[in-house]
């Protein structure tokens, strides 16, 4: 897939551009529920879990297609505008490139701030146990910062 994106990038001569940095990443979207208020974990654990999920998101030369990578997940998104700054998002999530889940949601942009709300379909698959029989749906709240790179 990366090779395909690179090939497309070369063909269209459109560069890859930083779209945003998700300070709160919608996928896995578990930070708020696991380390958020009311859960007095140590500062160290909270800090590590936070850093793990911070995700730079890059717009690819393919219209609406973005890729993002944090320590926790690496994802491919497809975003389409609906009305003004409002859009829809779908995505596939991996962990170290092991397919792990998918996301469906909406987002809104206010200048450089992007807010997202989505439902994550998360499997229990890990490299130690690549098993996709159990799935959970978890809410994802995203907060990203950056100037939108997409033309729309």
């Amino acid at each position: 897939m990366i090779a395909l994106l690179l090939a497309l990038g070369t063909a269209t001569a459109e560069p890859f551009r930083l779209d945003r940095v998700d300070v709160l990443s919608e996928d896995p979207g578990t930070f708020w529920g696991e380390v958020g208020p009311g859960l007095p974990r140590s500062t160290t654990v909270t800090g590590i879990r936070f850093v793990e999920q911070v995700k730079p998101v890059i717009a690819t030369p393919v219209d609406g297609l973005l890729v993002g990578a944090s320590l926790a997940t690496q994802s491919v998104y497809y975003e389409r505008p609906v009305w003004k700054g409002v859009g829809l998002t779908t995505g596939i999530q991996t962990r170290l490139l092991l397919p792990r889940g998918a996301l469906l949601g909406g987002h809104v942009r206010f200048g450089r701030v992007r807010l997202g709300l989505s439902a994550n379909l998360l499997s229990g698959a890990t490299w130690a146990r690549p098993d996709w029989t159990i799935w959970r749906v978890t809410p994802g709240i995203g907060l990203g910062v950056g100037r939108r790179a997409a033309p729309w």
Partner: protein
Amino acid sequence: MLRLAPLLALLACADRPTPLVEAHRTGAGYWPENSEYGTEAALVAGFDGIEVDLVLTRDLVPVLHHDPAISTEHCTTADGGKVPKDTLIRDLTLEEVQEGYRCGGVPLEAFPQALVVEEPILSFDRMLELIREHGRADTLIHLDIKQEPGLTLPPQAFAEAIVGRWVAADLSQRVHVSSNLPDVLQTFRREASLYGVSIETTLIWPRFPVGASTSQVALRREGALLAGTEDYVKLAEASGADHLAINWELVDKHLAAVAQREGVGIMLWTPNDAALLDKLARRWPADVLITDFPGELP
């Protein structure tokens, strides 16, 4: 006859609104940990479960103590002196342990509100008597085996001493054995099978070896979870454990929920805040909460 009711069936009970709550080290937030006073008080209080730590003396008698060495923080010598560092229990007989040292008489910084009661180190035999005298039939007895390579006697000695005593006591309570070493759990299951009984086992995660840096251990385990090379279901399967006891601060909630749905009992240690306990009980995938303050959850 040892009656080991399938804990898993109880843990998996779908309509149970809250997890079981175990008194960690007999309830270290209220009274001296692993003590006779604490054991009796916890049993009388009627907590869902009571967790104790077991170490073996040189003459193969299990005693309640958290570390392979007599604690320099919790204990003194019988005459009130400082306990020499690295006084290993495996090098002492029961008589030497009980006559030479007193524990629980030192106020603790971590639990300033806890009662201070000085006692000899409690033997497992006496604990079994206390369970017979004060235990409810449905009290969960959790034996955490503190076998530590190089610092204690080997797993087989622990298994023979503890399973044999439990069987002989013929108590009705449910029991499960935990360790952070899969070998220990396997040895206990094998020993129990010699008596014709099965025993439920719990793998404690992560393992903090004696003397190791907790930060380094935690970071390594976090890295392994991130890389996906460590997985709760896999850990339980590989160790043959029925349950996983996971440090609540390090637990990955999603992986714990997946493991629970795969039939692995999930225990979380050691949340101590009342509001936190309530939240974990209501919203987290937990079958058992192990806490120093078991009376705080309504």
